[in-house]
């Protein structure tokens, strides 16, 4: 536990002593801020029109504004996460510090968990920063707090899945760029693979949807929780943390 905390603290310090965390955070806030501005402007326009013509459509905040914003955040996280996770193990392997780290009486589990939670914390901080927008909105209109909480819970789970996957790709190589790209591509495919479901045989379609990150996330922006989705994300995180530990171990035997 002490080793876990030591590693967690060191990783956090590494993010915030270097420009990495700030650059990613600023880029993230600029993007989400833009989407927020565009979303709110559009929603204002739409509500004006609906006021004049109530039969046009049924407008509600969760479906027509918040849900969209949260989906956007989830996609931006998909691109931010591998940039944050790429250095976790690859950098230590390249610089040789891993050799020293592994000579201490600590388990591979505490190394992997310490790094996982550090990167997850940074993503959590990023997600939390978008609450500035939520609070701004709360000045203007009453918000569906419960479904918002569910949506944000989903975002954090998803961020955890991205981090676990990125940590694993970082454990595979000593090259950070390779680690980042090996993180992006499969995540994007896993994200979008559910979209192909209507185009293939129903059985295969179900399988694709079952595997897809995007499909399992769908409910959260609407404020809906399905236990299957929860289980999916927990298993996804667990699987890739497990693989990270095994890779760390396997690299020793092959070294």
């Amino acid at each position, binding site marked *: 536990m002490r*080793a876990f905390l*030591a*590693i967690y603290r060191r990783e956090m310090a590494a993010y915030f002593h270097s420009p990495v965390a700030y650059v990613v955070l600023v880029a993230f806030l600029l993007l989400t801020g833009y989407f927020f501005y565009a979303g709110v402007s559009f929603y204002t326009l739409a509500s004006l029109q609906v006021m004049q013509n109530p039969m046009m459509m049924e407008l509600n905040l969760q479906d027509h504004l918040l849900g969209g914003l949260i989906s956007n955040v989830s996609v931006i996280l998909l691109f931010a996460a591998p940039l944050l996770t790429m250095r976790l193990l690859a950098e230590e392997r390249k610089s040789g510090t891993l*050799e020293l780290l592994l000579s*201490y*009486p600590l388990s591979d589990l505490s190394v992997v968990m310490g790094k996982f939670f550090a990167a997850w914390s940074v993503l959590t901080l990023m997600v939390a920063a978008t609450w500035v927008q939520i609070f701004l909105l709360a000045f203007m209109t009453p918000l569906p707090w419960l479904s918002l909480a569910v949506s944000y819970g989903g975002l954090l789970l998803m961020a955890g899945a991205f981090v676990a996957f990125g940590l694993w790709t970082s454990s595979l190589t000593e090259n950070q760029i390779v680690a980042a790209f090996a993180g992006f591509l499969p995540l994007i495919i896993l994200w979008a693979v559910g979209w192909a479901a209507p185009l293939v045989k129903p059985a295969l379609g179900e399988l694709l949807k079952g595997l897809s990150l995007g499909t399992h996330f769908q409910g959260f922006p609407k404020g809906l929780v399905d236990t299957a989705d929860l289980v999916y994300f927990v298993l996804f995180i667990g699987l890739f943390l497990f693989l990270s530990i095994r890779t760390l171990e396997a690299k020793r035997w092959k070294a």
Partner: protein
Amino acid sequence: MIEVRELTKRFGATVAVDRLSFSLDQGEILGFLGPNGAGKTTTMRILTGFFPPSSGQALINGHDVVEEPKAARRAVGYMPENVPLYSEMRVEEYLYFVGGAKGLDRGLSRKEAGRVMEAVGISKRAHQLIKQLSKGYRQRVGLAQALLGDPPVLILDEPTIGFDPGQIVEIRSLIKGFAGTKTVILSSHILPEVAATCSQVVIITQGRLVAEGPIELLRAGRQGGASLKVLLQGPQEALTRLLQEVPGVDGVACTGTSPHLEGACYFTLETEAHGQVAARVAQAVVAAGHGLMELSPVSASLEEVFMQLTTEEHASGEEAA
């Protein structure tokens, strides 16, 4: 304290360490010698648990490095070659991290960090970023992290590279100070350093053990008889004859005249053993009325022993191949 049995490590087809066995008692300082690529670093990495051996066994304090990795690693302080450190951290902050990673609680970590910074002389640099330190200071931080937690075994891979001569003396005396309390393995190819700090020597080449034992024994054993160097004043031929008649002297060679003393010559004598022979030589020379200016026993330097061992082994290996 440290026991290595039939240790073998293969990387694909190459054998980096080949059935290496040696052992080391508590409080001893072992110089681990060998030419570049002999398998020193590989052996040290196995001892510190970075990777397991292909076969064989390594025990630290009775704990197998593969079977009980945590117990074994708890007993070891390791300083790798090139000293990989987190360059973006401050010295003190880094040592606190090491304390935590070694499982010490917060208070103990701080106390230990203070103690080891004092021991290696970096207290004044505590708040500096590691990347701003000179090579010598980085090396000290590396040593500090190995000492942190007071492990009974220290494994130091080329610990004095990067130091200036003054610092080398300092670090050597620090390491020498561990004699009797800590068990130290120190790899080096600076032979005088090993001669100055170590009580035991293991020499390996191409992954195989070629010699093991106390330094003195190693030198004596490799000499094949002793020799004496004398500087005498007198007629050269008469002296040669005189020396040849001294009992215990097997061979006499005149190796040149002295540049400083008129009419004085250096002789190298092959003898059976030191002690009595030297006394007899002195007596004979003085009794015959010649001048005895200098008389010193010549023992093989560690360099000679090292060269002899590593090249011999190389040649026989080549023959076998």
